[in-house]
């Protein structure tokens, strides 16, 4: 299991701004180690953000997204004290879901 994500969600007026920092190697599959063997690709493929059971952002990523990926986005609605849930799946089938309370 990967390390937890850092999620910050702030309600400003009727818009909620969400910032997510995930902990993941995001290995491209193109790099070689000291012995010259290729390091296999390992990266997050799918990301979904939900609020109140409704998807507010979904993404497909390739290995070109930087290590320890960062995403920020805004959606309408969302009140203080409610929760935003972020989940990702990587190409090894590993998953992680974290939630944050809107501040």
């Amino acid at each position, binding site marked *: 299991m990967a390390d937890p994500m850092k999620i910050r969600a702030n309600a400003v007026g009727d*818009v909620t701004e969400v910032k997510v920092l995930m902990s993941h190697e*995001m290995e*491209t599959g*193109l*790099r*070689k180690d000291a012995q010259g063997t290729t390091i296999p690709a390992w990266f997050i*493929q*799918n990301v979904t953000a939900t609020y109140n059971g*409704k*998807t*507010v*952002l*979904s*993404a*497909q*990523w*390739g*290995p*070109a*997204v*930087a*290590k320890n*990926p*960062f*995403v*920020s*986005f*805004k*959606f*309408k*609605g969302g009140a203080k004290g409610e929760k935003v849930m972020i989940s990702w*799946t*990587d*190409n*090894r*089938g590993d998953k992680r879901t974290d939630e944050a309370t809107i501040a």
Partner: protein
Amino acid sequence: MMDAQRRDWLKQSGGITLLTLLAAAGWLKSGCAVADGWNKSAFDTHSLDETMKALGGGAPAQSIDIAFFSTPDIAENGAVVPIGVTSNVAKTESIAILIEKNPNMLAAVFDIPTGTESSLSTRVKMAQTSNVYALVKADGKYYVASKEIKVTLGGCGG
């Protein structure tokens, strides 16, 4: 003696092959399950035309309604290049980030449901100085804007 050794070796390697096959089958299975909702062909392209084909769209129209924000002109470290894209095109459905000179062009696709602002930012890797495209799908049509980012230190390999 020689023959016995050879037989052992054959047995062993036969076993290894079988294991490898099994492992491969298992991996393929889980690979398929993961690949649900991940457009493999689109992430395996090397030009804008190919990517458009894989995404199922025609040639995108240049648009001045797509803007980059908090995106550098010169990135010192190609391993972490912040990219922000805002689309002012009405009915924006998705925003994709493409990097022309990366080994695979498509970096990320974000689907924007109604109620979510068509403006987001993330960080990508860049192999070298390249044009970066923001590809926006709105109302079934594709629009594109580009920006050149100079990279002083590549973010792939090395």
